[in-house]
């Protein structure tokens, strides 16, 4: 495949893949990062992404799917432009991780793996993200937000909404009080 003319990836990503497969003693070692980088650009692992990655590495599409389904960050359906991943594992749970998740659910009106109707946000409850000492923590795409409180949630959403070019109309609940249940922890 000529990466310049036929690739579904941007020239920059196509060049990165060429460099990646050349780098390893065995070409296939590039597979896992390549899938993640492709997903970052395209949004999810579409059939076309899988076909192109298979061809670039020289394995079958089935091989690619077999590997891709193993890794929790890889997805086969689009997510929101900003994928909010809320950790509720033990260290975060002890410091109110579920309150953070509740607040995001309330603000966005979607649950686990849900996407907002404008496609700006998706929400996920995730396992430990390696920010235990700065809990509760979330990741929005690859950005970490540490030491959260439920009342910080609307501001975080506003920030990303502005980035996405969808400034809120001010009616999101910045002023509304969190109706959280009595703190457990």
């Amino acid at each position, binding site marked *: 495949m000529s990466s310049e003319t036929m690739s579904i990836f941007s020239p920059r990503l196509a060049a990165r893949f060429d460099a990646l497969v050349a780098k390893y003693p065995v070409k296939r*070692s590039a597979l896992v990062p390549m899938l993640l980088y492709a997903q970052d650009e395209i949004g999810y692992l579409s059939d076309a992404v899988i076909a192109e990655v298979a061809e670039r590495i020289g394995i079958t599409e089935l091989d690619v799917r077999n590997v891709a389904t*193993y*890794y929790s960050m890889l997805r086969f359906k689009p997510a929101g432009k900003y994928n909010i991943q809320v950790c509720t594992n033990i260290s975060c749970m002890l410091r109110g991780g579920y309150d953070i998740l509740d607040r995001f659910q309330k603000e966005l009106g979607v649950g686990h793996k849900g996407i907002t109707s404008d496609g700006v946000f998706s929400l996920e409850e995730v396992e430990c993200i390696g920010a235990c000492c700065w809990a509760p923590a979330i990741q929005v795409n690859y950005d970490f937000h540490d030491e959260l409180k439920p009342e910080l949630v609307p501001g975080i959403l506003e920030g990303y909404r502005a980035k996405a070019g969808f400034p809120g109309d001010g009616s999101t609940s910045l002023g509304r009080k969190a109706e959280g249940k009595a703190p*457990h922890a």
Partner: protein
Amino acid sequence: MPRLVSHPDEVKIVTRRFGQGAANIDRYLELGGYQSAKKCLEQGPDWIINEMKASNLRGRGGAGFATGMKWSFVPKQSPKPKYVLVNGDESEPGTCKDHLIFLHDPHSVIEGTIIAGLAIGSKLGFIYLRGEYRYLLEIVEKAVADAYARGFLGKNIFGSETEFQIITQSGAGAYEVGEESALMESLEGKRGVPRIKPPFPAVVGLYGGPTIINNAETIATVPHVIAMGAESYAAVGTPRNGGTRLFGISGHVERPGVYELPMGYNLKKMIYDVAGGVRGGRKLKAVVPGGSSTPVLLPEEIENLGMDFDQVGKAGSMLGSGGVVVIDDQTCIVEFALRTISFYQHESCGWCIPCREGTDWLKKTFTRFHAGFGTASDIDNIQHIAQNILGRTFCPLGDAAAMPTLGFIKKFRKEFEDHLNGKPCPYARHEELAAV
């Protein structure tokens, strides 16, 4: 940016460059960087391995295997290329120390990888970071590129005849890949399922070649061991437990954070003095001493407990990854156990049936139990299931699920019994957790 903490009892060896801009190669050099790698290049493999053995440095990933010993298992002559693999797939709940190493001192990982390569006669090292650590991967990649530009990596490192290359690699979300054989599978572009041992990776590892796999903290420690001398390093810790450890204290403490303390540091002091005690002046209920896979300890068990591999082992738990999770008296242990087992159920790769089925049954039973639909026989049944996972899987994930489960039941049996009689847990508030 994750908050950095400090305490007067800390002995800053691995963290001594944190917060000083050492991700910049010039700054790293100003702070004494790459001198250890140069020294090792002059001294040769036998000297390096002897230093590592004398340092009593033990693997920081969790198992605590002696690093020098591990390196010495690699055959000197090998028809296949040898590899160094740095495990930065940090995923054990309660553990975030490697996060800070990659952020503040990526060159220490690179320098440690070079030294490991020199020790075993390898020309290629891999630094594997979990997929979620993208911003850290970018920091490490920049550091690797800078090291190449200075000639510290490449065909002729530090102007010598010796070659050493480093490839950085991103994962894509999988706790299991932190297990060394699954890590190699992932690096070979496969599903991260474990391999049976033997053969051990030191003999048959990545691409079938002899491979050493070390935790990122272990590798980051190596240049410091060389710089300060093995004996000085060993003297910091306790017998057979050299040096310091990056203890990540999280949960219900006033000052959570990653603290570098000498091996053998008293756990009670760590919680009450270093981390400022239990949050809000509450009482301590339990401590998970080394990441979520290590059996829970009671307040009376930590009175005189020194945090090194041997002492925590004697106390019936494990030092693990050094992730100390502190639990106060207003926490429901059944809920905590449920959240712990839910994680292992989610992360079980499904390769070994006892782990795949066992974690699933445990999660189901705990969920029902916590929702108030438990029966007296469940308590014994949970133990029975956990016992039947233990030691019956290729990799330690099965044990990692079974060991804490057994600990919770053994030490908090009464709290489990209090959940009987159809009463929902008095602390329950998460419908999504309570729903079967």
